[in-house]
């Protein structure tokens, strides 16, 4: 079985830990406890008949222009940038953040996920999609378990490319 190191990055409070908890443990908690440093979880996924052990790095959320330590990206096969669809500041400078992550990680593609879709109406979500300057890969809800599995499968597909 192949193991792939993948990272979840993005502003604090966007729901990275919640996405991982939902994906790995199928659990969700309303409480917000900020992540310190890195918390690594593992889960085996089947992707195109291949079992992949995803080593998921839950990287502490950043604020503003705060940089993620470059060391975290060593050996990473893929990264997911998570933003909160209900908080504009988490996707306002998404271009800039993605460029920074690509430079630090050396990765060509970053999976882009908008989380907390449960907080917006369909019309509001459409407005967010129009406002975000890049293509969003998936819009998820860790709370209501919507598209979470798909988001990680997308990440896995990026990891084995």
């Amino acid at each position: 079985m192949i193991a792939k190191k993948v990272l979840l990055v993005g502003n604090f409070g966007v729901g990275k830990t919640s996405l991982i908890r939902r994906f790995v443990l199928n659990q969700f908690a309303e409480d917000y406890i900020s992540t310190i440093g890195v918390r690594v979880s593992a889960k085996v996924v089947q992707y195109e008949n291949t079992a992949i052990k995803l080593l998921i790095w839950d990287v502490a959320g950043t604020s503003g222009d705060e940089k993620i330590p470059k060391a975290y990206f060593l050996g990473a096969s893929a990264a997911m940038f998570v933003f909160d669809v209900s908080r504009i500041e988490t996707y306002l400078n998404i271009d800039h953040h993605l460029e920074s992550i690509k430079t630090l990680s050396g990765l060509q593609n970053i999976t882009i996920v908008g989380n907390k879709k449960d907080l917006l109406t369909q019309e509001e979500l459409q407005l967010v999609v129009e406002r975000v300057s890049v293509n969003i890969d998936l819009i998820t809800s860790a709370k209501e378990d919507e598209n979470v599995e798909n988001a990680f499968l997308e990440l896995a597909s990026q990891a084995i490319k």
Partner: protein
Amino acid sequence: MIPAKIEDVFIQITTNFFGVIQNIIAGTFVKKEFKLQASIYKACPFLEGTLEALEPHTPFLLEGMLIISNSKEYNVDIELFKNDDNITVLIHNRTNVYKFVAQLNQHRNDIFFIKRELAEKNTELEKLRKIADKANEEKSRFLAMMSHEIRNPLNVILGYSEMISDEQINENVKEYTKHLSISGGNLKVIVNDILDLSRIEAGKLELVNSPINLKKIAENCIQNYQFQNKNTAIKLVFEISEKIPKTVLGDDVRIHQILSNLVSNALKFTTTGIISLKLKCSSEDEKLMNISFEIQDSGRGMTESQAFRIFDEYQQNKKTDHSVFGGAGLGLSIVKRLLKAMNGNISVKSELDKGTIFKIEIPFLKVISSEKIKIKKEENFPKKILKGTNILVADDDALNQTIVAHILKKEDVAVTLVKDGLEALHVLKTRVFDLVLLDIHMPNITGEQLVQQKDKFAKENKEIPFLALTANTTPEDLDRYKEIGFVAVISKPYTAAEFIEKIGLNL
């Protein structure tokens, strides 16, 4: 030899390139998690994928990683170094440091979310405030309109009551018309109170700060009520301290309103004894003088709980006093709000069946001598006799026309009556007048439109005084009328005396 305490906070291990532990070099930190020939990835899952990617002979630092031992989480920093044949892994326990980082981080993030929530709530509040403001404006507009609609017929009621009482009538009819006039007067007070309260609530109350003579205002107030009061068992007394200056800066109309309200209240609830109004200086400095006004009666008094609620709106209604004493129970609420706007205060002491004392205190700015001159000039403004003057009256309401004609004819005025603005314009082109009274809401040409067409009038009529005769009495209306060319406004409902006085002042 490394001291035991230091041994406890680190562990140094060597692994092969696939993470298999080859040696435990030093330290005892979570040592039981690491077994020779076992994978380091079990205790350090973050090294899987990382070790393979290490650059040889290059130190590498991973900060803030997590190790779990005996179900306890430890925050660690890891130093890695890849040699030619193995990898050195140095693990430092930094849990104590990261504990504080975690707290600070959590607080920072919590504050962010609280601030965000506050901002959202503020936006929501702002929206609600705008909605409330709009509703309040609508209410004010509605009240102003209703006031206009009430004042016109009220003017007719009061006007005709006055006309009837001037006729040769028997005692019964005299008594009936007196009640008609009193009720009409009460209704006028209620309409004014409702409008005042609405304006204060909407934040539209603007206080004037001009030189005023407090002694004169208080004396006038007492004299008015002395004149109106027919109960000889009540004595009205006025006292003023010598310390009170002749002039201070303030709003005479509102001070009069406050005192009138309190004296009128005292009269309502007193059947025998004394009602006194006393003015004293409570304190002063270079600029300000705090003046206290004490209104004491020997009336029926109140219980403590009644006194506690006395400044709330509609209190009189709740006690079913309305039917006995008239009024909507708004007076004291308005007094309290007016005083608040003047940075003043009011208190009440009362004892059942003994009487009540209202004490108000207002800080007044002292005046400089030049301002005193101004007040004297206003007081000495001359009134002219109406007899023999030519006055044009334009009003589409026949009943109001009749009242005006009746009052003016009694003063031997030559009155010309027209029923709208167009007719008024026609006569103003061809005939000469001394003064013009215009209703505002008239068909064809309104009073407002007409007063702005002076260039079309006969030359002699261009300089004569135009007075608005209207039930629109909001300060905004009054200001506008003055701006467009009216010299004064006679507000409906009016008494014959007020009407004559206003015309006399402007001829």
